[in-house]
């Protein structure tokens, strides 16, 4: 791989001592990273390890605070995405940003369409060029179709073609197989190998270790913003990488004994052989007073389970039971009426009304409870809100403050307050600690434990294993829509769960 026949020096990208600090968190500390021409260099690490920050530094989104990055031996001085792109650094995201109503050709050639006499766009020539480009990499897409009509994998290919058209010499693939099935994944792997053959340097960011070992020449492991190791893939095993990702810390579970859980009790919530397009034969239950963590990579099925519970997706077969009775909600309204509440993943997007006050958000699910003779009782509403602001120690100037002025952690707590006012017996929390600081995390853990001790059944869907282990009773691990483990949190470890969730079925069946 060091000899690519072009005679150019092998090192394409050289980053040394790169650091990046965000308010409250050191996202990268003194990280070295090199990439050679024709090399596939995998970047792995848990959520928050600093992978995406490093990618963003290299691709010009965030200028590093410390250290320097050299491309082709020249130091990058201007950090903007456009400049990086002009230098030949291209990032292909999971969901590429394309212009949906322009054709594939127009997207690929955007800004550099061939023109006749510098004026009229030469459409035929553009389409031909695109077709050639796509064919060269065995990308099978009609260049005249608007991107909006393409499937997710096809859009990804368009994004790759766009990078190739601009002669990208460094391609960054960020979780490229997240939206791909086995066949499309195999195609992508072939393309990656092809590009590497032709001298393109590729940074491959992925959670799926099997893919990493199939493609990568070298593997760099990041943890908590620091470089753990860079080694040739041939000298590593998957187990070793998992250990490196997990670190030496033994993540003991700090779960309080949950005496309320009785083995014999009918589960408050039970999945029996549930099938959807994403889930396969899912079978487990959540008892009263129990906190169950559902863990898996993005796309492993946790989110879909939550959707099923809120009536946003329907099982094609199998049965969901709530307190022993078959449960088939038509939508959130029915779900809430039957005693399930979903705290969605992204509070600002799906959970809260940012312009409304804390009080107005808290009571939104339970307007009836603050309605007297058909009209809202603002006094009652304030009392309810103040009660929960106190109970969950939500930091806010007053209950009349607009929710958008609250920090992420406090917004998350407002969502939990909504869950409490809904009087639901079963709570489903999606990524409840995502993007909140350590202190707020601990508080959210405490609140969730407290809810369980009051007899609620709590299901927490998350990709953050370490976080879940700190407050759940049981871990249900999902991989590609299947339950691969259902174990007490006490008797498992971070590394064990990580190992179970990171294998890629796509590769296995390719």
């Amino acid at each position: 791989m060091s000899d690519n026949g072009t005679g150019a020096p092998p090192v394409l990208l050289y980053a040394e001592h790169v650091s990046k600090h965000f308010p409250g968190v050191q996202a990268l500390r003194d990280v070295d990273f090199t990439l050679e021409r024709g090399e596939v260099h995998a970047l792995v690490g848990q959520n928050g390890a600093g992978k995406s920050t490093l990618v963003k530094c290299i691709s010009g989104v965030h200028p590093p605070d410390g250290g320097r990055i050299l491309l082709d031996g020249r130091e990058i001085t201007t950090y903007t995405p456009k400049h990086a792109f002009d230098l030949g650094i291209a990032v292909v995201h999971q969901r590429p940003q394309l212009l949906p109503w322009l054709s594939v050709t127009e997207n690929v050639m955007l800004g550099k369409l061939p023109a006749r006499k510098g004026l009229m766009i030469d459409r035929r020539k553009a389409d031909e060029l695109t077709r050639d480009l796509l064919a060269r990499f065995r990308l099978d897409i009609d260049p005249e179709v608007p991107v909006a009509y393409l499937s997710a994998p096809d859009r990804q290919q368009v994004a790759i073609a766009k990078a190739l058209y601009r002669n990208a010499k460094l391609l960054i693939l960020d979780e490229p197989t997240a939206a791909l099935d086995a066949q499309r994944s195999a195609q992508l792997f072939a393309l990656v190998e092809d590009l590497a053959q032709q001298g393109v340097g590729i940074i491959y960011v992925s959670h799926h270790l099997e893919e990493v070992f199939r493609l990568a020449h070298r593997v760099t492991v990041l943890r908590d913003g620091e470089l753990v190791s860079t080694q040739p893939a041939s000298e590593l095993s998957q187990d070793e990488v998992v250990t490196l990702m997990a670190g030496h810390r033994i993540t003991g579970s700090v779960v309080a004994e949950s005496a309320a859980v009785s083995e014999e009790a009918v589960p408050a919530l039970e999945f029996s052989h549930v099938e959807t397009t994403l889930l396969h034969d899912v079978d487990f239950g959540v008892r009263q007073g129990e906190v169950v963590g559902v863990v898996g990579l993005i796309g492993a099925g946790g989110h879909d389970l939550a959707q099923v519970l809120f009536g946003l997706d329907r099982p094609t077969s199998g049965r969901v039971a709530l307190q022993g009775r078959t449960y088939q909600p038509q939508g959130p309204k029915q779900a809430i009426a039957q005693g399930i509440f979903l705290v969605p993943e992204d509070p600002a997007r799906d959970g809260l009304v940012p312009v409304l006050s804390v009080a107005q958000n808290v009571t939104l699910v339970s307007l009836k409870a603050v309605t007297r003779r058909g009209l809202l009782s603002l006094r009652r509403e304030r009392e309810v809100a103040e009660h929960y602001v106190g109970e969950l120690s939500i930091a806010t100037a007053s209950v009349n403050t607009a929710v958008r002025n609250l920090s992420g952690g406090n917004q998350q707590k407002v969502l939990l307050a909504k869950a409490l006012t809904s009087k639901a017996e079963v709570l489903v929390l999606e990524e409840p600690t995502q993007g909140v600081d350590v202190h707020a995390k601990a508080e959210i853990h405490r609140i969730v434990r407290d809810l369980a001790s009051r007899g609620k059944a709590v299901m927490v869907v998350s990709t953050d294993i370490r976080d879940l282990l700190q407050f759940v009773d049981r871990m249900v691990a999902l991989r590609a829509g299947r339950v691969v483990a259902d174990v007490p949190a006490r008797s498992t470890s971070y590394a064990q769960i990580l190992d179970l969730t990171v294998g890629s079925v796509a590769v296995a069946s390719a």
Partner: protein
Amino acid sequence: MSTGTEGMKSLATDGLVGATTAGPALSGGAPNGKGRQGAARSRNVDVFTLWPIAVMVLIIIATSFTSSRFLSVFNFENILSQAAPLGIVTMGQCILLISGGLDLSVGYNISFASIITGLLLEHNAPLGVAVLAGIFAATAVGFVNGVLAAQGRAHPFIITLGMSIFLFGLDTQLTGGAPVNNMKGLYSAFGGYMPGGFPFFGLPSVTWPFLIVVLLTYGFLRWAPLGRRAYAIGGNEAAAYLSGIPVKRTKIYLYTLMGALVGITGMVLSGQINEASFNLAQNFELQSIACAVIGGTALFGGRGGAFRSLQGVALWGLVQNSILFIGFSSNYQQMSLGVIIILAVMVTRVQR
């Protein structure tokens, strides 16, 4: 091209739906204009939201120098009675804008209501029957708007624009293009275009339905669960849906309510000028949106209130009136109103 998705998203939302971004807001970012919510609230009231009042004071001072008749009870009543019909529709528009919707069919729907009533009166129907039929007709139109908007297959802009064009045709068809020129009992109630004509408790009678609607709208937005749902849907429809709010049903109710207010406007306006015709309320759709927005109601939902929109209506009426008093032609009315609406939106943007 390598900006994170979040970056793009927030960029897009910030540009368009500023109300839903989580960006840093100035003090009192809570929905203002819903009046005072206890002592703590009043301290938080954004001074910016009161700018129409400040502008009005300036206009009043300036105009009163040029004409001694400007500052008179007579002229005050004049402004009120002229602003009343637009004011009633503006309240409905304000509610719809808060919920993230809008209604462009109000102009020809007002005509529709008045024509139904006018034709019935022409055929000697009892006043009560004619009025109820007119209001019912407009309400039914609102209901249809609501059902279509609730499907979410087309933006309410398009749905109500289509409805507006449809109603224009229907109105013209019903009247044959010629106005109904005798509104009988309605004229007795609301007529007397000029103040002093038919006073009722000291004010021109048309102002009473207006003031009542303003108060009801204020109460609706503050105390009615349906009003609260409008704020929630306009502020974040996805969150409202996931909170168990029946989004579709709520939208249908709100558009139907708008239809009823349009019907009332039709009665007041046609009674006031003793005429029912297809061009009775030309441009009311855009003027009512303009008034609500001048008052600080967010064009894309989530924020606004009855008294805010009332300020918009008052400023609108005052500008029209004072321009005439200063002695400029009515063309200057239009010009200054155009300037005001642009400034209004820009001021609201700065305020965030």
